């Protein structure tokens, strides 16, 4: 296990290094001028030139890359050209909002995925309607789901808010639902939850189907497997059969898919955050790209890359825990 973790850590560092080099190269060949984001679009050429010099953008590319890596080692991701703030500070503000949204969306995806899989595997009466509905929703792109959700639940019915987080993050975690509980503020907890429902569902539907389909196929196969029949024949209780033989043997592919989907959710959060005006890193990235705010773009990309790598490593570990036959 330790060997696996060390190996994963090493390969992750190499991947992140490669990712940072690619981003740097892309920045160089992209025709945009990031200085305009810093100093203002209508700034005179003289002002732009002075700002470019002060930002160190006139240095050769390899030198800038080395500076970037040197700062990265010290946890310094530079200053955003757009917000004029430290990117680390920006991420500190925006990342918790995204993490909370994706966490809730991931829980929704797991719940809906399990519902989809189990109702399908057991062929419950009437659940085909639910599965059909989920499938139809999953075929729609997330922006359409998001807009449809806002129109129906905010504009028409008035049941749910149409955007933002509903309250200020007051620490210490940046997760409003946790912070409000820590402060004993139940009303704020409920508000935060209400604001999370629509964006989280918009983000969760497609991953739920992906996870559900894999889990369903796995469950169907395992429930009819010889070893399950043998376990029952031995007189094991159904709980023991399910826990020890069905779920553990079915969960591997679904876990793998869930890990993959978690990574996709972080990457796909950009569109959903824009529609719901969610103050997360997706929105931060979407605002930074048109003005070539490289420090911000690089930081978000590195964060997303790191999350993706960690999520997949965790899935490997969970799979190994669920199925001892897997050798890490």
């Amino acid at each position: 296990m330790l060997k696996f973790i060390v190996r994963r850590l090493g390969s992750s560092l190499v991947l992140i290094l490669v990712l940072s080099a690619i981003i740097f190269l892309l920045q160089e060949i992209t025709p945009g001028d990031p200085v305009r984001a810093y100093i203002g679009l209508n700034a005179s050429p003289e002002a732009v030139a002075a700002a470019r010099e002060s930002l160190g953008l006139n240095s050769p590319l390899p030198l800038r890359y080395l500076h970037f890596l040197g700062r990265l080692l010290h946890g310094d991701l530079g200053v955003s050209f757009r917000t004029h703030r430290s990117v680390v500070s920006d991420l500190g503000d925006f990342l918790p909002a995204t993490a909370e949204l994706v966490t809730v969306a991931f829980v929704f995806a797991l719940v809906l995925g399990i519902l989809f899989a189990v109702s399908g595997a057991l062929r419950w009466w009437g659940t085909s309607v639910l599965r059909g509905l989920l499938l139809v929703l999953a075929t729609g792109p997330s922006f359409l789901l998001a807009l449809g959700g806002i129109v129906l639940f905010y504009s028409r019915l008035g049941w749910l808010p149409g955007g933002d987080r509903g309250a200020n993050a007051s620490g210490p975690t940046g997760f409003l639902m946790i912070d409000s509980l820590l402060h004993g503020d139940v009303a704020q907890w409920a508000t935060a939850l209400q604001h999370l429902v629509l964006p989280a569902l918009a983000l969760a539907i497609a991953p739920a189907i992906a996870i559900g389909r894999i889990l369903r196929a796995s469950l169907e196969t395992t429930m009819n497997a010889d070893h399950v029949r043998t376990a029952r024949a031995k007189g094991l209780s159904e709980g023991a059969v399910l826990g020890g033989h069905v779920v553990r043997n079915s969960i591997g592919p679904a876990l793998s898919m869930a890990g993959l989907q978690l990574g996709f959710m972080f990457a796909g959060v950009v569109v959903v955050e824009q529609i719901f005006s969610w103050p997360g890193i997706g929105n931060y990235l979407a605002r930074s790209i048109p003005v070539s705010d490289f420090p911000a773009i690089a930081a978000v990309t590195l964060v997303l890359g790191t999350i993706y790598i960690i999520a997949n490593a965790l899935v490997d570990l969970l799979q190994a825990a669920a199925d001892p036959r897997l050798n890490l």
Partner: protein
Amino acid sequence: MNQLGGKRALKALVAVAILPLLAVAGCAGKTSSQGSAGGKAAPTDGVLTVGLLGDIGQPPDPDVYYANNGCAIILNVYEGLVQYKNNLDKVEVAPRLAESWTVSPDFKTYTFKLRKGVTFHDGTPFTSDAVRSSFARRAAVKGGAAYMVEDVASVKTPDAATAVVELKSSNSAFLDYLASPFGPKMVSPDGVKKNAGSDNAQTYLSTHDLGTGPYELSDVQVGSKYVLSQYKDYWGTISPFKTINMPVYDDVSSLQLAIDNGDVSVSVANLPSSSLKKYQDSQTVASYFLPTIQSAMIFMNPSKDFFAKQEARTAFLQSINQKQLVEQVLGARSTPATTIYAKGMIDDGSDKQNITYDPSVLSKYAKSLPAGTAMVIGHASDNVNAQQMANIVAAQLQALGIKASAQSYPTSQVFNWPNDPTKGPDVFFDGNNGPDGGSPYMWGHVFWDKTGGINYFKCDDPSTDADLNAALKTGDKALFAKAAQTYSATGCWMNLSYNKDWVVAQKWLTGVPESQNIGANELNFSMLSIKK
């Protein structure tokens, strides 16, 4: 039996899985923060909600901020010495923190008599020393609009209520610099000193303010919302709105739904023209079309083969059915431009734009070109109106046998073209742009001079630049008009439309036109009120 038992256990598992979803659904009842279709009554809590489309983009520091919608904050938190007169469709400088002023005949000395009884939000009094230190801070910070004080040689303060600004050279546009939304604003000298840090208080002013305006910056959540609170000791008009809540919407559809539901009270220049009819016919929401010094424009790229010659550029501009294009795409928010400068910049109309619609000239020219000659019509990717105009013109050109196509470009790329115009399209439709202030010099310099910043393709005419620079020293309107006519004849550029601020507000909100001025593109919230 065992199989049935397994199914029961799985059903229990599913029930456990469904519970959290049911709990969430249970929590989702109607709350006071949510509206229903058809708008809301006027607020009774003194909160005005102003919807922003997109974040303000830069810190709300008056010496740093040089972008767009953040002016709503700057102009309500800070004040300059002068401003443009409100509720007027032409530029006219009006008092703000200066009650009166005199200008020397050589446009080198500007003497301001300052308003008494004004205090900064930190409680310190506004005096002539603040003029001196505010100008000095702007020069030191070196933001995009620092050019406005670059020419200041000194600010003398003979007494607390008099500031004498000496310029290094004659500048007839200096009052316009001061009246500009990006012009120097008065910042508390004591506050800056106290919070200077290592960056001239830039860090402090990214989340606080040190102005004299009717509102104080009380909460900054970058990318999410900005909140202003009424300054109780403000010298001017006090509105019933104690708090201005400015949520950021990143999607125009979400903003529109919030306006429709009454969750947003007012939004300035944010909605697409495609929504014009909906809001003009609305029972609950009012539309105001208020004057600006902004225009839709066409920039020609002389570094491209197609438009290397003046004849070709002019032929293209003549092929544009200006009236039809403006009415079709921009509708009530614009009128076709008839002058080369913004409307009213030159009083006598001697800057009339003489480009007559005649598509046959380009048609004839197109026939002389090799078959299938391509032309790219560019537009900014975030400007729906420009995109629509580019598409319409491309279709019209295709009918003439030109292989024209419309292409979008991100803003950062557009503003990089002056470094290498060959990387730009053949022609660029700019849906909305304007100078920092209302002086003809500011207009001509920024759009026509190759060093101006928004002459994207450096289509330059040295005699125009010389005339503009000479007119800047004397304020000679005839020379400004001559510069305009000379530049227009190059076929490098066309003023397509006079654009207006389309303000959408709940019908209970009053004072909207009175709170807007032609240079600001934003509202003075202290002049808004609630219908009785």
